[in-house]
Each structure stands twice: as structure tokens, then as C-alpha cells.
């Protein structure tokens, strides 16, 4: 009760100080006024009465102090003082600071470790994951792997003996209709070996039969557990029932076990699996569309399999020289292949956090050495009394282990706490298996190991410094601190060097990100919205029916209010997807007449206008370019430059190989667009009108709509219009084009911001380390500095002398850090865009930044040194 009252009063005081002061003055004034009135009533003249009243009352300022104290304000002031002492104490007792510094370093490392461990180190969630391989066809000229043609796959399967099982798939999405609302699900058309390769057996029902591989009429499906629950309520009677996939009924023959997922399946674990159903009689050696997975036979090495598949590919090239010349095959470990893209980025991230750990270790070690020096009397006395050095070292290291383990626990908590954020960020950044990220036992043990390593390293450095004090002069208190700061100077230098390297890497990544962000994709993404039209395939077979649907959709949407124009394309620009095409250039073209792969986009009539792509020469596609009229194409500027070298390409003809070769006339040159990815400059590219064969059969399902500036978003109107055309169209978001492009930025943003955060922490830690070292050096050398002042040194001299304890090793560290910074540029080289790994302006900027931090951190505590009162220190000396 009493406590509560005091607290309330304290709170009132804390928040009502000004009001309290006003009220107090007013109350005292009233008292004097009232007394004056009484005196006047007794006949004293006004002026005299006022004077006497004030005199009787006495001075008010001293009284006010008393009143403040009486009211409990003193409590508050004392509280404030206590806090200050406690903080000072904390600064003295270095335990909490050491734990905090190590916990930060360990926590960040554990968080990144859990990501790296999940995606790079943990085996794939399949039985005998090390036997899983990925088989790709290979462009022998460029050395680049690509997907495999169906007939090549069947030949691999028939002829290979190094693979126990081999399977192919491609990942079409499916639209499920019938029953509840239409729904778009991930799917795979896969050959019969797929479940054996992945090592999964359907929980109920069966997988696929080998006969179904070559039977285009096999309408059976295996479904995932979640879909089974969703659509069939987990009823075992689902087997034998039908499910309508993209407008066609399939018989459910199997359900996969609960929790099955496979990072091996691109782009995600399918919910619906149907037989690949390839007709072997159709010439399908050119359509390179299959992803091939396999399982090595026991005892067969990767190299043997690689050799065998290469030989098979060689034989195929000899058998089908027109198509397969220059096509090889390569086998790589599936895990290795899945993580190939992301591996350099994740290693860079791991390197960054290890550098940060090094900085925090050096920091902790610096604090420890300071602590050991403060206890120098204790250690020196014990050594003088016969304690062994080993005994002292053991004591310091043991103390440290406790701190380290505490730090590991806090760091583990930190990592645990950031898991959700990590998973989200890693998913957005396209880290494989991000959903599997767990901060679990492995992470915990790694944390414990890290902390033991750090404590041993720091403890040994501190212990080494402590046992060098075997000197009786220390015991007598006479020894000053000879060469004491050498270890700490080295530690500062290490911190500065690695912080610099981290900052350099971060600066390069951030610059790359901004360069990328400001890159123009070659069209105007502002005011464009886009959506995907995934029509049920069965009711809209590829060909005129499908083309007519797209036409109607464009027509309807173009007529909506606020819409300037609309068109369709097969792949949105900068989306990371695309198709390529082999073209043969006409005789007489500048470069050659051989086939060359170029980027292909099949687009609607108003595409260039809708996207605001400049038409450099020629004309846009229009109604004249209908089915049956002469074939036309547009090419981009890169293609014009590369293959026509100044000659006018308009009116020239390209030979296009789509199974049956045909000629097409070039009618336009359009501006370059970064079709494949924002970070990849446009290469030679061809645009074909979707109104002509064979493009008529093409799925151009991405609708692009240019909205008039200032008009409200027509998103819901577009969705309504499309649903009116086809009620079974699954709902697909209408996105601004800018958002589509922004997706391409999430990955560089993730790495840039992560490394930037780590670098900032490292720089702050380094600054803190420098500050702490200079502060304790100043404290230790009070006498020396005092004597200097007494002998006539100016405060400025003393300040410089003190600051040098920190500034000199910092600058030394920065010099040593430059090669490290260059190395960090090489580590992040693959992620750079528009800036080189050794960018001197960037490097200079980070050196300047780190120098500023180091010098500021060294000067702050030195100011105290320059304010030492020489008389005080000398007296202190005498008292000693």
C-alpha cells in the first residue's frame, strides 16, 4: 500500500514536474499575500506590510528544495542516480557486454546457418538422397545444359544401365473444375518411374503403369494428400472417382502419403500427377521440354553415369544427325543441381556472418583483456604467491565459457525469434526449401560449438595477457602498463579490417540493387496491369478455339472504361521465363546462315503499343497478318545489330524451324526489352504474331492492359469481364506490371539488405570496441597523462595521445582490410550488377566511413583524458 502510494507519487512527480513547480510557487505566493492582507487589516501600510510578510516567511528557494524533497522528488532524483551508477557499474563489469556482443554474433550466425543448412547441407527428403541425380541434355557448343526431348528421354531409359530408375516430367498447371469453385493447382505430367525415383509409394491406390507413358489416352491421376482432403474429404473411396482437370475427366488412381513434398520437383511439389502420355509415333525429338531425374544403380558412381549418358547422347547424335548433332547429356547430383543457382549467394551470406562473428569475438576478447588487466593485482599476486600459470589460465577460460554459453543461449533465442521472418524472406528470395527452415537441435548444437570456440579463443587471449603479469612491480602497484595494449590494438585492427570487408561487400550489393532498380526494362511498366487466363484445356484445345477466346478477351477488356489498350503474350517480360527458337538467317545477312537460338515471344496485335515498346523501323502487327497471309515477324534492335550489321533488315526473311521450317518476313525492328530477366541485357529476339500459324496454337495467356493515366484500377472489371466469358476460369490476381518486375528485385534486395545489416552491426561493434579500448587505456594511464599535463602538455596534446591508442590500430586495420574488402567483392561477384567486384569509389567510400567511425570512437573517450586534473592525479599517485 505504502509502496503503491510512493510509486504513484513518484509517477505523478515524474510526469507533472512543471505543474508541481507552478502550484508550489502559487501556494507560497498566496501565503505571503494572505499575511500581507492581515497586516494591512491591522493598520500596516501596504508596502511595509508586503515587506514584513516576505521577511517573516524567509527565503523561498531553499524552502522549495525542501518541499520538493518532502514530496518525494528526492526519491526520483536518487533513482536517477542509482541508474547512473548501475550503468557505470555495467560498463566496469564487462560480463553483460561480453555476453551481448557474443550473443549478437552467434545469433546472426545461427539464423544464417539454419538457412544454409536447410538448403545446401541437409539431404533431400527422399530415401537414399545421395543416389538421386538430374539428367540434362547438353548444348555441346556452349556447354549449357537444357531440358530433354521426349524421344531422347525414352532412349536414355531404354539404353542406360547405370541408372536403376529414370523418370521425366514437365510441370503444367491444372485447373480443377466441378464441385466447389474452380481452382488452379500445380501439376506434373510424369513418366511411370517418377514415384520410384523419388522413393514414395502412394498411400492408397497405385502409381503409374509403364504402358501409360506412351498412351496419350491415359486419363488417370495421382493426387496429393492435401488435395485429397480438400476435394474428397479424405475419403478412401476417392480411388476410382473422377476429377476434372483443365476440362477433362481423369480417374483418380492413387493418393500420395501425408506430408510428402519434394524440392526436386520444379517449380513446386505437384498436387496433381498425371501420366506423361507421349505418343511415340509423333516426331518428338525437337521439343526439349522434359526434366529428367534418376536414381543411380548401387555401386555406380556419378562419373560412370555421366560417361554412359554422354555415350548414349553421342550415339543418338550419330543416329539422328539432323536434330541431335551438338547435343550431349550430363548427369549431376540432384541436390547439387538444385542448389547450384543459390549456392554462391548463400556462401556469400555465410562468409558475411562469419566475418561478423570474428568481429564480435575480437570485440569480446578486447573487453576480456581489459577485464583481466583490471584484475592484474589479483592475478599478479597469486602468481607471485606461487599459483601456476595454468591455474590462472584455467580460471579465466572457465569464467569465459560460462559467458559464452550464456551468449549461445541468448543467440539461439535470437535465431528462434527471427525464424518466421527468415522463412518469409528466404522464400521471397527464392532460396530452395525455404519452407523447411527450422531452428532446431542442429542449430542449437552448432550454437554451443560456436560459443565454446569463441570463448576459448577470447579466453586464451585474455589469459595470455594476464599471465604475462608475473612481475612483482605489479603487485607493488609500481609497474605502469608496459606494452599492455598490444593485444588490444591487434584486436581493434582485426575488427576494423573485417568490418571494412563486410561494409565493402554490402556497399557493392546495395549499389547493384539500386542499379538494377533503376534499370529500364525497355518498355513502360507504369499503368500496365496484367493477369493470367488459364482456360480449361479440354474445352479450348490449342488452335483456333483458344485463339478466338484470347481475341474475345482482349476485345472485351479493351472496351472497359479507363482501358487504353490490351493485348496478350506467352511470357511476360522480366518474369524469368521465356522460350527460344532456332532461326536460320537468309543468305547475304551479315553474320552467318547457320541456325542460332534467339528469344521468342508470341504476342497479340496491340502488344507493342500496349507495352510502349518503340518501333524503330517498319510497322506493327495488324489485321493484315491473319492466318493464311504471308508469315511475318518483328525483331529487336539487338538482333538487327548482331545479324544485319547496319543493313536494313526490313523485308528480309528468316527461316524458322518449328518442326516444319518456313520463312517469315521481317516487318519491324522494335526496341530492346529485357525479356528474360531484369539483370540480363536483351539478346537477339524475335516477336511473332499470335494470329498466324503455327503461333495460333500457342498459349498466349498473359493479358496485358494499359490503363489511362489517372483512371481507377479496372482490376475487378477485368476479372468480371473474363468470368463472364468463361465462368470456369480460375481466379487469378490482376497485378500491376511494376509488381511483376519488382519480384525480380526481391532476391537482390534480400541479399543486399541482409549483408548491409550484418555490416552495420560489425561496424557498430568495431566502433564500440575502439571506444572501450581507448576508454580503458585512458583510465589506466591517468597518472601518465596527468603528469604530462602537469609538465605543461596542452589538453589537445593529451587528447591526441589518448586517441592514438584507438585510432592508430584502426587505421592499421583498415589498411590490412583493403585486400579483404577486395576479396569480399570477389565473393559477391555473381550477385553484382552494374558495378565491378573491385570498385574503387565504393571501396574509398567505405574506407572513409570506417575511418570516421574509428576516429570518432577514439576521440570520444579521449576528451575525458584531456580534462584530467593534474593536481588530482598527482595527489592520487602520492596516496598510492
Amino acid at each position, binding site marked *: 500500500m505504502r509502496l503503491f*502510494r510512493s510509486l504513484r*507519487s513518484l509517477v505523478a512527480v515524474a510526469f507533472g514536474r512543471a505543474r508541481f513547480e507552478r*502550484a508550489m510557487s*502559487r*501556494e*507560497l505566493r*498566496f*501565503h505571503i*499575500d*494572505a*499575511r500581507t*492582507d492581515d497586516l494591512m487589516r491591522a493598520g500596516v501600510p501596504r508596502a511595509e506590510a508586503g515587506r514584513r510578510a516576505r521577511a*517573516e*516567511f*524567509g527565503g523561498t528557494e531553499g*524552502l522549495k528544495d*525542501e*518541499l520538493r*524533497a*518532502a*514530496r*518525494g522528488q528526492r526519491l526520483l532524483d536518487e533513482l536517477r542516480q542509482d541508474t547512473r551508477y548501475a550503468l557505470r557499474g555495467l560498463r566496469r563489469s564487462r560480463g553483460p557486454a561480453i555476453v551481448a556482443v557474443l550473443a549478437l554474433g552467434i545469433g546472426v550466425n545461427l539464423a544464417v546457418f539454419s538457412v544454409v543448412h536447410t538448403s545446401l547441407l541437409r539431404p533431400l527428403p527422399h530415401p537414399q538422397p545421395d543416389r538421386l541425380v538430374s539428367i540434362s541434355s547438353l548444348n555441346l557448343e556452349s556447354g549449357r545444359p537444357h531440358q530433354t526431348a521426349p524421344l531422347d528421354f525414352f532412349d536414355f531409359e531404354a539404353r542406360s544401365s547405370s541408372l536403376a530408375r529414370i523418370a521425366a516430367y514437365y510441370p503444367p498447371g491444372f485447373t480443377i473444375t466441378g464441385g466447389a469453385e474452380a481452382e488452379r493447382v500445380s501439376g506434373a505430367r510424369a513418366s511411370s518411374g517418377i514415384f520410384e525415383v523419388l522413393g514414395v509409394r502412394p498411400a492408397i491406390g497405385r502409381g503409374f503403369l509403364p504402358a501409360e507413358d506412351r498412351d496419350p489416352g491415359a486419363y488417370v491421376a495421382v493426387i496429393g494428400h492435401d488435395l485429397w482432403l480438400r476435394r474428397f474429404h479424405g475419403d478412401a473411396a476417392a480411388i476410382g472417382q473422377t476429377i476434372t482437370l483443365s476440362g477433362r475427366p481423369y480417374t483418380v488412381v492413387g493418393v500420395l502419403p501425408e506430408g510428402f513434398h519434394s524440392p526436386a520437383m520444379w517449380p513446386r511439389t505437384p498436387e496433381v500427377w498425371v501420366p506423361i502420355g507421349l505418343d511415340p509415333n509423333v516426331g518428338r525429338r525437337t521439343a526439349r521440354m522434359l526434366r529428367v531425374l534418376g536414381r543411380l544403380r548401387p555401386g555406380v558412381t556419378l562419373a560412370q553415369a555421366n560417361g554412359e549418358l554422354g555415350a548414349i547422347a553421342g550415339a543418338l547424335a550419330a543416329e539422328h544427325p539432323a536434330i541431335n548433332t551438338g547435343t550431349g547429356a550430363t548427369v549431376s547430383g540432384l541436390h547439387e543441381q538444385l542448389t547450384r543457382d543459390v549456392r554462391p549467394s548463400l556462401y556469400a551470406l555465410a562468409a558475411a556472418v562469419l566475418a561478423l562473428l570474428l568481429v564480435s569475438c575480437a570485440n569480446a576478447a578486447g573487453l576480456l583483456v581489459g577485464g583481466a588487466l583490471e584484475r592484474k593485482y589479483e592475478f599478479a599476486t597469486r602468481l607471485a604467491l606461487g599459483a601456476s600459470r595454468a591455474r590462472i589460465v584455467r580460471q579465466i577460460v572457465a569464467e569465459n565459457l560460462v559467458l559464452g554459453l550464456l551468449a549461445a543461449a541468448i543467440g539461439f533465442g535470437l535465431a528462434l525469434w527471427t525464424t518466421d521472418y527468415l522463412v518469409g524472406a528466404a522464400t521471397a528470395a527464392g532460396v530452395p526449401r525455404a519452407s523447411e527452415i527450422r531452428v532446431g537441435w542442429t542449430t542449437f548444437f552448432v550454437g554451443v560449438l560456436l560459443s565454446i570456440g569463441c570463448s576459448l579463443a577470447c579466453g586464451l587471449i585474455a589469459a595470455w595477457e594476464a599471465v604475462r603479469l608475473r612481475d612483482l612491480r605489479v603487485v607493488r602497484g609500481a609497474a605502469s602498463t608496459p606494452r599492455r595494449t598490444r593485444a588490444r590494438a591487434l584486436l581493434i585492427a582485426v575488427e576494423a579490417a573485417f568490418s571494412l570487408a563486410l561494409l565493402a561487400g554490402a556497399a557493392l550489393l546495395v549499389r547493384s540493387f539500386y542499379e538494377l532498380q533503376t534499370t529500364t526494362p525497355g518498355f513502360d511498366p507504369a499503368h500496365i496491369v496484367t493477369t493470367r487466363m488459364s482456360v480449361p484445356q479440354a474445352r479450348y484445345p490449342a488452335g483456333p478455339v483458344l485463339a478466338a477466346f484470347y481475341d474475345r478477351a482482349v476485345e472485351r477488356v479493351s472496351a472497359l472504361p479507363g482501358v487504353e489498350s490490351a493485348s496478350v503474350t506467352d511470357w511476360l517480360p522480366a518474369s524469368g521465363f521465356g522460350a527460344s527458337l532456332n532461326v536460320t538467317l537468309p543468305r547475304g545477312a551479315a553474320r552467318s546462315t547457320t541456325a542460332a537460338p534467339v528469344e521468342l515471344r508470341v504476342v497479340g496485335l496491340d502488344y507493342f503499343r500496349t507495352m510502349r515498346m518503340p518501333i524503330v523501323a517498319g510497322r506493327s502487327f495488324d489485321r493484315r497478318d491473319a492466318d493464311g497471309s504471308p508469315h511475318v515477324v518483328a525483331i529487336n534492335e539487338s538482333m538487327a545489330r548482331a545479324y544485319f550489321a547496319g543493313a536494313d533488315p526490313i523485308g528480309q526473311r528468316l527461316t524458322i524451324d518449328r518442326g516444319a521450317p518456313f520463312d517469315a518476313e521481317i516487318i519491324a525492328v522494335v526496341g530492346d526489352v529485357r525479356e528474360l530477366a531484369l539483370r540480363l541485357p536483351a539478346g537477339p529476339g524475335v516477336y511473332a504474331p499470335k494470329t498466324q500459324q503455327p503461333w495460333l496454337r500457342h498459349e498466349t495467356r498473359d493479358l496485358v492492359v494499359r490503363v489511362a493515366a489517372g483512371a481507377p484500377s479496372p482490376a475487378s472489371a477485368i476479372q468480371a469481364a473474363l468470368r463472364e466469358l468463361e465462368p470456369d476460369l480460375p481466379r487469378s490476381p490482376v497485378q500491376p506490371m511494376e509488381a511483376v518486375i519488382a519480384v525480380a528485385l526481391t532476391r537482390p534486395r534480400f541479399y543486399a539488405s541482409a549483408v548491409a545489416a550484418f555490416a552495420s552491426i560489425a561496424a557498430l561493434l568495431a566502433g564500440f570496441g575502439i571506444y572501450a579500448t581507448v576508454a580503458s587505456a585512458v583510465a589506466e594511464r591517468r597518472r601518465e597523462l596527468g603528469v604530462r599535463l602537469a609538465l605543461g602538455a596542452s589538453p589537445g596534446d593529451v587528447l591526441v595521445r589518448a586517441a592514438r591508442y584507438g585510432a592508430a590500430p584502426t587505421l592499421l586495420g583498415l589498411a590490412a582490410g583493403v585486400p579483404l574488402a577486395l576479396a569480399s567483392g570477389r565473393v559477391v561477384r555473381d550477385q553484382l550488377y552494374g558495378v565491378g567486384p573491385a570498385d574503387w569509389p565504393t571501396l574509398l567510400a567505405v574506407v572513409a566511413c570506417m575511418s570516421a567511425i574509428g576516429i570518432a570512437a577514439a576521440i570520444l573517450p579521449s576528451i575525458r583524458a584531456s580534462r584530467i586534473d593534474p593536481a588530482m592525479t598527482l595527489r592520487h599517485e602520492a596516496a598510492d
Partner: protein
Amino acid sequence: MAKAAELLPGTLDMLILKAVSLRPLHGYGVLLRIKQISNNALDIPQGSLYPALYRLEHQGLIRGRWGASDNNRKAKFYSLTAAGTRRLAEEAAGWSRLADAIGAALNATLPDTEA
């Protein structure tokens, strides 16, 4: 006028509590009231009145409220809280016992045991 008596330590708080127990008073009023109820026998040093008031308020024994004085000035009026009423009763009882004891002690005569 009789010479004002010296205030015993610890009695000021009790006197203030008594003074404001009759009706709410401002600081100056407390001073006058103590003079009045002690028949001018007790004179409070002005410098110790306010610290005592503030202390008592902080302890929750009295409560200050702003109001209008007789000549319509704004003044802070103190009144007794429930805790203050209890404390006053305890102190008064304690004081009476003490006063009785001291009175008895001072009036005592030496028993003639040595005769």
C-alpha cells in the same frame, strides 16, 4: 501575551492534522488555526510548515485541493484523508499517554524511604 511555547519534535504533524480535521484549510489558515486552538500558546515557524504539509500529503494523510479563499484568491486547501483521521487518533492517544506520564513524573514526590 504569553511567550509562545517551543514546539516539541514530532508534534507539528499532529497539530497540522488536528487543524485540518476541523475543516479544510490553506497553509496560512493552518498557521492561524494552530495559534487559535492553542490560545496563541504555540507559534509555528513558518519555514517548517510547508515541508510538513508536503510530507503529510506525500504520505497520504492529508489531501490538497485548489479552491477559492475568503477574499476569492485561488488557494490550496488541505483536508484530512481517512488514513489521516486514523493517524490523528493514534497520535492524540499516544500524546495523551505521554503527557499523562510526563505530568505524573514531574508531579511525583520523593517517597520518604531514606528517612
